[in-house]
């Protein structure tokens, strides 16, 4: 709960629709059409071009951007919208951004049309979470596209920037009690003025950051991507005429909404819910905070309702996060065979959220963790609700995928690089969590994150050249995948220390790195299994100070367990600290949840898991009830013992359990 609402901040609460269209039109001519009649060939041809366009924009972003955030983790998004900002197409990138970029356009139309005005060649920058993003790190750039004096459409590019200020390096601010300790939100500001970057505005933007060159290069990446969109749209207009192109855009939205309605009608009617938690609202806090999400399907109507604890600390997100958390779960589970024309979904779904709760926080709540707490928190619950619903759909149950890697332990690093310059970056290895199991297959091991379809993980060598670090190990974690008839995919862990900070001849007394850590999902797993499946592991931050590992390495020993190095500290999930030159750090992140009862898993599959070290022999026996003898190529299932073991476990279940309400068997 915010201590005191800030009067004068009401303007920055962005609603989902344009507030005063007549006023907008007094200052900007909008290109509109009256109907969406277009011949089927033209519709198919131009729709296809729009679907190609956001990936072309995405290529530009990746190629021009300086950061591994965009190129590997795909923590960015590109969108194209109509004259009112309605999103016709989004790219296969970070799906959390789905509740976002149309609202930049709409707010700009409502509030900037008169002053300073909206003109051809302008581009507006915004990272204000109450207007249109999940946290301040996600900086969007929106370009109004004009044709013959009329505002025809919008292109938006958004990238997660490594540092936009605030108390902690990397801008995930573990100490924050409210937004004033975090990076400052910037409501939409005209940073490109009729084709040129305004250097005064750019300076104000860069000034807040510990890594100004990264912001500047990414600004150019976004500008280039938006300019590309304008070029392509102009080409389409030149070939087909403005009205036809616009009709296709509007028809795309109608078409997608119609198909989505049909899908919803085919799903069972009912209400499915999920309760989810976030631990620790800020540094040193030991609380557990709850949100309960309900998903209702009634014919072709879909409603998401959320209630829960009041906003607190820095784990919150705004309405953008609530919307983005739900749509990012809908797209790959329900809408995987439909176009991803975002506005079609968002405007069709009913959203109900209590005021000033964690996932709909009022200004000035702390939101710097917005994506990896509030939004991810909603996403995990929404995915769970959808999976529960699919479990009662004969036709669509094969679309179930148990909760995949349900959190991202952030690790922001700052220090002196090997050329002696200050750098600030994020470790992006977390883009390798396990995917959840499905009714027909195990979850994919080290698969990525479900909200980033094309996400990738950097190589060890790339990290060792960009960051002054040395890895002891990086591997898939045994027993991390949730147990089930089908096993969840394995998560991954890394263990590393600083190396050549400041260069090979760097000052050994200045060999440390600053570290900021924020995570949801350390105290308990952030996702669970489905249909009787078990949860995966949680994320963990560990460390050993003054390890002496550099000597071990020179002497011919590469430790493969942090526990073998020295006294292991378990770090609080909201922490700012320093990694000394001889300190070893460890980070792990989750696998996916299991599907179905582990006692139903095919023993031969468990054997294969044990041989490949995805499952330990102990877990095989304890969780799956499979007894395995021998090692390596000689390992084999003891069938009789397994049958016995499984019978015993079932008996134990009955013996240890009771009815929650009391009551007799």
């Amino acid at each position, binding site marked *: 709960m915010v201590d005191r609402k800030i009067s004068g901040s009401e303007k920055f609460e962005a609603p989902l629709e344009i507030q005063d269209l007549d006023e907008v039109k007094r200052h900007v001519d909008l290109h509109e059409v009256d109907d969406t009649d277009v011949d089927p060939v033209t519709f198919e041809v131009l729709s296809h071009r729009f679907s*190609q366009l956001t990936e072309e924009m995405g290529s530009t972003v990746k190629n021009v951007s*300086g950061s591994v955030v965009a*190129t590997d983790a795909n923590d960015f998004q590109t969108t194209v919208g109509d004259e009112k900002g309605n999103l016709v197409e989004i790219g296969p990138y970070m799906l959390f951004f789905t509740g976002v970029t149309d609202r930049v356009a709409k707010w700009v139309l409502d509030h900037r049309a008169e002053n300073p005005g909206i003109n051809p060649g302008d581009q507006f920058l915004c990272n204000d979470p109450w207007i249109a993003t999940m946290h301040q790190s996600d900086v969007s750039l929106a370009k109004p596209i004009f044709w013959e004096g009329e505002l025809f459409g919008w292109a938006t590019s958004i990238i997660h920037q490594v540092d936009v200020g605030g108390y902690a390096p990397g801008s995930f601010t573990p100490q924050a009690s409210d937004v004033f300790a975090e990076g400052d939100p910037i409501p939409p500001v005209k940073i490109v003025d009729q084709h040129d970057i305004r250097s005064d505005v750019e300076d104000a933007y860069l000034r807040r950051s510990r890594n100004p060159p990264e912001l500047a290069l990414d600004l150019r990446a976004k500008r*280039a991507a938006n300019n590309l969109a304008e070029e392509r749209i102009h080409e389409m207009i030149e070939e087909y005429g403005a009205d036809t192109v616009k009709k296709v855009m509007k028809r795309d939205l109608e078409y997608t909404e119609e198909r989505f309605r049909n899908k919803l009608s085919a799903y069972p009617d009912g209400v499915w819910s999920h309760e989810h938690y976030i631990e620790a609202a800020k540094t040193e806090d030991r609380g557990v905070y709850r949100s309960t999400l309900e998903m209702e399907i009634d014919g072709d109507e879909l409603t998401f309702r959320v209630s829960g604890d009041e906003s607190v600390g820095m784990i919150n997100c705004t309405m953008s996060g609530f919307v983005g958390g739900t749509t990012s779960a809908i797209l790959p589970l329900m809408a995987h065979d439909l176009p991803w024309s975002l506005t079609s979904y968002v405007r069709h779904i009913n959203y109900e959220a209590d005021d000033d709760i964690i996932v709909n926080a009022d200004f000035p709540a702390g939101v710097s963790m917005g994506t990896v707490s509030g939004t991810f928190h909603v996403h995990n619950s929404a995915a769970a609700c959808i999976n529960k619903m699919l479990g009662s759909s004969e036709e669509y149950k094969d679309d179930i995928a148990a909760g995949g890697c349900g959190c991202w332990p952030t690790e922001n690093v700052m220090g002196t690089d090997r050329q002696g310059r200050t750098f600030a970056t994020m470790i992006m290895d977390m883009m390798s969590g396990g995917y959840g199991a499905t009714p027909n297959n195990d979850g994919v091991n080290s698969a990525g994150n479900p909200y980033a379809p094309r996400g990738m993980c950097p190589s060890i*060598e790339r990290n060792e050249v960009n960051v002054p670090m040395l890895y002891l190990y990086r591997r898939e974690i045994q027993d991390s995948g949730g147990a089930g008839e089908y096993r969840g995919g394995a998560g991954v862990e890394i263990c590393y220390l600083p190396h050549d900070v400041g260069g090979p001849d760097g000052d050994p007394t200045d060999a440390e790195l600053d570290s900021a850590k924020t995570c949801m999902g350390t105290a308990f797993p952030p996702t669970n299994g489905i249909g009787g499946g078990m949860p995966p592991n949680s994320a963990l931050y560990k460390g050993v100070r003054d390890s002496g590992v550099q000597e071990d390495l020179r002497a011919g020993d590469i430790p493969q367990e942090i526990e073998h190095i020295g006294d292991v500290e378990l770090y609080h999930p909201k922490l700012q600290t320093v990694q000394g030159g001889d300190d070893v750090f460890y980070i792990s992140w989750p696998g996916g949840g299991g599907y179905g009862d582990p006692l139903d898993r095919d023993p031969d599959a468990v054997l294969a898991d044990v041989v490949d070290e995805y499952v330990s022999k102990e877990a095989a026996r304890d969780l799956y009830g499979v007894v395995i003898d021998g090692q390596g190529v000689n390992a084999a299932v003891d069938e009789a013992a397994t049958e016995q073991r499984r019978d015993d476990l079932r008996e134990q279940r009955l013996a240890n359990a009771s009815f929650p309400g009391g009551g007799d068997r």
Partner: protein
Amino acid sequence: MPYVIGTDIGGTFTDTVVIDDAGHRVTAKASTTPDDPVSGAVESVTAAAEKLDLTFAELLAETDVFFHGTTLVTNALVEGERGDVGFLTTKGAEDEIHIGQVKTRTAGLPFREIQRLAGMSKPEPLVEKPMIHGITERTDYKGEEITPLDEDEVLSAIDDLRSKDVDSIAVSFLWSFADDSHERRVQELIEERTDVDVYTALSSEVAPKLGEYMRGATTLINAITGPLMSSYLTQLNEKLRDNGLDGPIYLMQSNGGVLPITDAAEHAEGAVSSGPAAGVVGTRFVGESIDREDIICTDVGGTSFDVGLITDGNPKSVPEQVVNRYSLHQKAIDIESIGSGGGSIAWVDETGHLHVGPESAGADPGPACYADGGDRPTATDACLLLGYLDPENFLGGDHELDVAQAREAMREHVAEPMDMSVEEASAAVVDIMNSHMSDLLRKLTVKRGYDPRNFDMFAYGGAGPMFSSFYGQKIGVDSVVVPLSRMSPVYSAFGITTSDLTWVEERTDITNEPFDRDEINGKFRELRDRAEDQLLDVVDTDEADIEFEYRAEMRYQDQIKEIDIPLPDFPLSSAQVENLSERYEDELEKRFGKGAKYASASVQISTFHVTASVPTLNPTIAEAKAVETAGEAHTGTRDAYWFGPEEFVETDIYDGTVIAQGERIEGPAIVQMPETTVTVRPGQTASVDSYRNIVIEME
């Protein structure tokens, strides 16, 4: 009349092209025999020999050079049939090949195939975990030894792998390209410890580039397919030599070059996906003979549309090749594909919107008109219904097309739901197909900063010549060339014969601005010398005959993505070295627009790259004399639908095998040959040149 032979083993067919020194060409097809590929190749060559009234041996005796391409390696990887490999890597990095940088989940897949979460997967691992040994050893980013090599562990690993009967061992240590001494020592130990030859592949030799997963994958593929390839090529070599072939035998590589087959087995990964590269290389050759240097290469088959690009006579390549979702550190001719081909299925969704593809009827059951069990309308069916195909003359009359089946499929699945006539539906389908294809073409040329209007287009593959007059028109090229006309369906086999002996040396060696002239030249020189040595080792040639191409992969520091920048010269002058960053930034702006460059960002070269090539004997493609027309080339008319007038028009039909050189054909027209059909639209003009290329000038 000495012959040049090109034989390409594809998935279904083994194609052979035989060309004599007067330019006379025969072609033949045989079924591929996957269990014994050599016999399929022999059959195919024999069939070609028969057309010349020669036996297999008689043909070989008169043959100067034998060029060969195969999908053996690609198939082995995709189907997982391969020998057992062991893998040694740095302790702590054993799982890198399984994590695959997560790229293994999506590389090469179109967006629609990654939308469904429940459908996600990774390919079969290249090596199972029990076969991976992590060895205590460590080198850092600057090539300095952090942890010495534990030789006892190495020996123990070798013993374990021997006990598991491995056919080959791959070794990939972290930072091996910065210092290879640990890997070399492992090779020595393997040789000492094993009395039988275990094929060994070292990552520092196979792919000395940054990125342990890709380097490891490339090395593993080398190790996995090496023995397989070796055995196959040895068999082939014996068969050909025993039957009288004296001249060199070459194998096609995905980088567009060839290697002698006696050496190709050590670089088996180079032959992965070499087929499409052959089409581009063949196009460069034909293009050169008719003075065309900027060409968009298009290959339309039954299931896919493959596109490559040639600029200034050079095929565009990429530094990273994807095969079966594995990413390899290997230069390959850049081919992009979409799932759009003759077999693409037209369908209407539940809201009444028309789509074409991505699903394909493939070859089985095939289009409805094949009457082979397919009952859904495809692009081929549409073409038949629009009058472009002659049902009785398809494939030289071998396979009669069933018009009634095509009509019924189109009516039921498209025309009726869309409330259109069958003809309107067919026209819509073809229109959509061509738009998708021209969208891909535009995307590929423009993303590299080129304007398609400055290009010519070549069209080959089974269905290329049928669609190219449409998508060529749409994209704005000046002309479309159907190269060597009747060669169209066996174009890859031809393309291989035009390829040169090629060797690539590259190494990641991160070098920051400001660039030192001597240092830069020195790094290139080292690679150049090594490439030269390799070529001289395998072919008897003069140093003077070797051509070198130098490229630097450059990027902004801390940036991930690199751009390939060709050097203007070698060695570079001081001015040229200073100018390198500017060349990089110019290319960046060319591709990504004004404002893509950032003045304060500093530039680096990450990988140095030298390609050395020696010309092989190339085929003659000119016709010795003009074709004597056996009769009129014009054989009649039929009604066909054209988009200009948007109606059926009586259209001239020509026999493409007898059109006289220089004869001009005004569109609308259809040129038919047993191998392929060429459409010429209203406003376009087609002619046949001395090479029997069909050149269609756009409106």
